[in-house]
Every structure is written in structure tokens, then in C-alpha cells.
């Protein structure tokens, strides 16, 4: 047991080889590689959208109205006669950005906060975690309304606001992980070696808690995307004619009987992205899980 943990310690200390091993393991995982490739394509498409979109972003044809997929409009048009493929491409920019930026914000704040609280413990832990409880309980909607009023409309702000709410659960999960890791021999060994708490947290504890964090992150990205749609639907999110997958789906849901393509295609875009994320996430977890791989 203790030799195993010591091996762990040296593994973790040699960060480069840990990541290198993980990368080798990840490359062997076909599902993860496929997921990663699809995500990469999505991101590239989102970046290139202004140049590759078949129609102008706002171009309407009111007399055309909503039409099913055709040669001119591969995925059909919406009630304004706007090309759905173009809408999905532009919507992807917003959805992917909110998914990644807000989740990244949540990840950074949540992991740091939870790790510090869990590692230091005692009063600091109590105060930090009660602060989390307070933020959980504040009325979210009022918070967003105020942010919009004080800082004006700004997409980046919206992403930050969503991230600033989503980090709470992340912090709780991280704290529990750290509390349990802290008691383990390899951390105690690191302490006795005289490493600074900062180094211990970032070099030894966080890498070992990555598994649950990655899983939770892959679950956070969809919930963040849907939260954006909910806020936009209530008038607290992005401004039309800007759109996102979540918004397209919520409009599509209302007319699913009349114009099913307006629901199906944006829904597919979201689902494919989330599946890819999930496979990549599972692959990453397996690849980084040192203990699991030694079984």
C-alpha cells in the first residue's frame, strides 16, 4: 500500500510523464478520440462561421416563411424565412462559447475554492463553505437582473455570471475530495518533505481529484448551455437576432408539430456535441486515473 502511494507521489511529482502517459492512454481510446475530433470540428466550424455560412446571418424572407429542408436551404428555414443552417452555425458560436467559458470560470473558482477550504479546514473551511451556502440561497434571477442593469448588456458578462453561479457545486465536490485525499499517506509524505501548501494542493491533490471533476465538468457544460437558453428566453440573456442552440431548441419546442425541423436539427447539434464531450470526458478520466490503470 505505502509503496504504491510512494510510486504515486513520484508519478505526480514528475508531472510531464504523468501527462505524457495519460496522452498515450487517451490515444488508444477510440470513443474518446472520435469525441475529441467531433468537438474540434465543431469549434473550427464555429470559428469559421462568418466565412462559411451559406446565407447572411440576419437575411429574412418574410414571404418564404418556414419551409422544410430543400436544396436552397439544406436544413429548412424559420418563420422569418431565415436559413436554419446559418442560424445553427451562429448559434453554435454562442453555445460553445458559453459552455466552455462559463464552465471554465466555474472550474477555476470552484476547484480553487473547494481545494483551499478542504485542505486548510477548521474555521477557514467553515467560513468558506457557509459563503457557498449563502450564494446558493440568493435569488439568482434578481442577481442577473441587477448585473444586467449595472453593467449593461454584454455577452461576456453573461458567461461570467453563469460561471459565477455554477461554481458552487464544483466547490462542494472538490472539498469533499480534498478532505479525503488529505488524509492519505502520499500527501502526508509531501507535507513532511516540507512542500508548501500551495504546491501540495496544485501538484498532488488536484491531479488526484481530476476524475470526479472531469465527470462533473462534462455534466456542467450542458446545464450551462441550457441555463443560457432559459435566461435568454426570460429576456435576461443574449439579444435577438443573436441566437444559440438552447434558444433555437426552445423556439423549436413550441412549434414541434408544425415545423419539426426547427427542433430536430438544433437538437441534434446539441446532442452530438454533448455525446462527444462525454466520451472525451470519460476517456480523459480513465487516462488520468493512475490508480484505476494499475488494477
Amino acid at each position: 500500500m505505502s509503496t504504491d502511494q510512494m510510486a504515486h507521489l513520484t508519478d505526480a511529482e514528475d508531472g510531464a510523464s504523468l501527462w505524457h502517459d495519460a496522452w498515450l492512454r487517451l490515444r488508444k481510446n477510440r470513443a474518446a478520440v472520435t469525441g475529441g475530433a467531433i468537438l474540434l470540428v465543431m469549434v473550427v466550424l464555429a470559428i469559421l462561421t462568418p466565412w462559411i455560412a451559406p446565407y447572411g446571418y440576419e437575411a429574412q424572407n418574410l414571404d418564404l416563411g418556414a419551409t422544410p429542408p430543400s436544396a436552397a436551404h439544406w436544413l429548412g428555414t424559420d418563420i422569418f424565412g431565415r436559413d436554419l443552417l446559418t442560424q445553427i452555425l451562429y448559434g453554435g458560436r454562442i453555445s460553445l462559447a458559453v459552455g466552455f467559458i462559463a464552465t471554465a470560470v466555474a472550474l477555476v473558482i470552484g476547484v480553487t475554492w473547494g481545494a483551499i477550504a478542504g485542505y486548510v479546514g477548521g474555521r477557514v473551511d467553515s467560513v468558506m463553505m457557509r459563503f457557498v451556502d449563502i450564494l446558493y440561497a440568493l435569488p439568482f434571477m434578481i442577481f442577473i437582473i441587477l448585473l444586467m442593469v449595472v453593467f449593461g448588456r454584454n455577452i461576456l458578462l453573461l458567461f461570467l455570471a453563469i460561471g459565477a453561479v455554477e461554481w458552487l457545486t464544483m466547490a462542494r465536490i472538490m472539498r469533499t475530495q480534498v478532505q479525503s485525499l488529505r488524509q492519505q499517506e502520499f500527501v502526508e509524505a509531501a507535507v513532511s518533505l516540507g512542500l508548501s501548501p500551495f504546491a501540495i494542493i496544485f501538484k498532488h491533490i488536484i491531479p488526484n481529484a481530476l476524475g470526479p471533476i472531469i465527470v462533473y465538468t462534462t455534466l456542467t457544460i450542458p446545464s450551462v448551455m441550457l441555463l443560457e437558453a432559459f435566461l435568454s428566453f426570460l429576456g435576461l440573456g443574449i439579444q435577438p437576432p443573436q441566437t444559440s442552440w438552447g434558444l433555437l431548441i426552445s423556439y423549436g419546442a413550441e412549434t414541434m408539430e408544425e415545423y419539426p425541423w426547427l427542433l430536430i436539427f438544433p437538437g441534434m447539434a446539441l446532442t452530438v456535441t454533448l455525446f462527444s464531450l462525454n466520451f472525451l470526458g470519460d476517456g480523459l478520466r480513465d487516462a488520468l486515473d493512475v490508480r484505476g490503470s494499475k488494477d
Partner: protein
Amino acid sequence: MIRFILWRLLQAIPVIFIVITATFFLVRSAPGGPFDSEKAVLPEVKRALEAQYKLDLPLHEQYVAYLTDLSQGDLGPSFKYPGRSVNEILGSGLPVTAELGLYALSFALFIGVLAGVFAALKPNTRQDYIPMGLAMIGICMPSFLLGPLLVLVFGIYLDWLPIAGWGDLPGDKILPSITLGSAYAAYIARLSRAGMLEILSQDYIRTARAKGLPEWQVVTQHALRGGLIPVIAFLGPAFAGLLAGSFVVETIFQIPGLGRFYVQAAFNRDYTMILGTTVFLSTLIVFFNLISDVIAAWLNPRLRAQFKGGA
């Protein structure tokens, strides 16, 4: 342990107090007031209204008055619904939302654990991929989409179930419960699969299998308890989140629950109602987070030692 719980309960008092104070002043600084309406309100009428609800007092006096009332359990009159107290509205909505949440979570637990356990028994086979794929779809499927979809299929095309109401027609509680529960079922399925996988690889399970116990006995008698730890940790915050998150389902299915009031109060600037629901929700969150921490501690022997010290 008891010291730990008492200590945490003691901490809850400042937490709730800070939440109330912050909410009180946040809400007042939001633009628009409870009496703004599309048709302009005459200044003299507005003055009369503000006087009736004591909004003409200085803000700090209103704050003290609110706290005084609150200490006696009085959450004040609703601004949006004249003649109704916030206590009354909470009292009418809470049982409905609690019942909806209970059904939804039961459904989620049943389906989620079942799917997760089956998937974990034969990882990376079809028995794993199918339920886990469904779970992913469940996570992607927002309730504003699943609800109308279920309504169309079961309520209109098949005409099996009522599509709105709560306790008005037989069977009208089924679709909303499934809608609300599905997303949670998906999370629980993933969590229980992960938990089970970890437990099933442990030595004592191998021992049990080696003894020739039937697989279902291995699962029910040995693996399940440990494998569900992550699920239990998830349930506490989930239940609190469920009450706030039932807004969409309650709107789609015309359910007279708390979720609709919680969201609408913010949009109506119904100050007392916002505060009332927040007080209630913060108590709930503190309580469920405490329970979840206690269970996590109890199940984790390393941490249990820590609590005996009374951290």
C-alpha cells in the same frame, strides 16, 4: 457527531441572516417597483399604495420592520396578490411542489439506479451503452422540451393521460413527475454506474462472487450500499434544487406549486414574496447541504475520525 451537527445548525443562523439582508437590499435596488404597470399609475395613487404597504418609510426602518415581523413568523402581505399573505401562498404551494418533487425523485431513483447498476454489471457492452446513451439524452433534454413531447404523445396522440392540472383528473400527476424526474434520473444513472464500477472491482465483492453467490445477491446484499454513496451525496442538494427548478414543469402542466411563485415574484418585484421564498429556500439549502455532509462523513471512515474531534 452531535456536536458537529449542533455547531453547523448554529452556523446556519448567520447564514440565513446574511441571505435575508443581502436579498432585502438587492431586491430594492433592482429597477422597477411592485406597483409599476403598463398603464401609468397616477402619482397620488402610487403614494396611497406605498403608504398602505409601508414603502414610504426609510429603507432601514422597513428592514427593521421586516425582521421584526419575520421573528414572529410573519412574512408579510404579498404585493402582487392583495389580500394574500406570503405565509398563505407558501402554504398553498409548498405541499404541491413537495409532492411533485417526491414523485419525481422516486421516479428518478428507481429508473436511475436500475439503469446505472445494469450498466455497471457489464461495462462496455450493449447493456452499458444503451442505458448510458439514454441517460446522456436525458441530460441533454431540457424539461421545456420533454414536457411538451410527453404531452403530445401520451396526452394528445394516444389520449391516455390528462395533460394539465394537479389532482383534478385521475392520472394527471404522472406526466409532470416523469418530466421533472427524467433529468435527475439521467444524473443518478451516471453516478450510480460510476459508484458501482468502483465497488464491484473491490476484493470483498470478488470474494463474495468466488463463494458462488448468485449475481443478484452480490449486488443487492454487498455492492449496492457502497455503490450508491455518490448518489446519496447528490440527493441532498438535488432536492433543494428541485423545488426551485420545478418552475418550468409547473408552468407547462399548470401545477399550482411554489416554483411558479418563486420565479414570478422576481419578475413582479413582489418584495415580500421574493424574501419569503428566499428565506424558505435558504433554510432548505442549509439543511440539505448539512444532511449531505453528514452522510458523506458517515460513509467515509477517514472523515469520521475528524468529526469526533468536533471540527
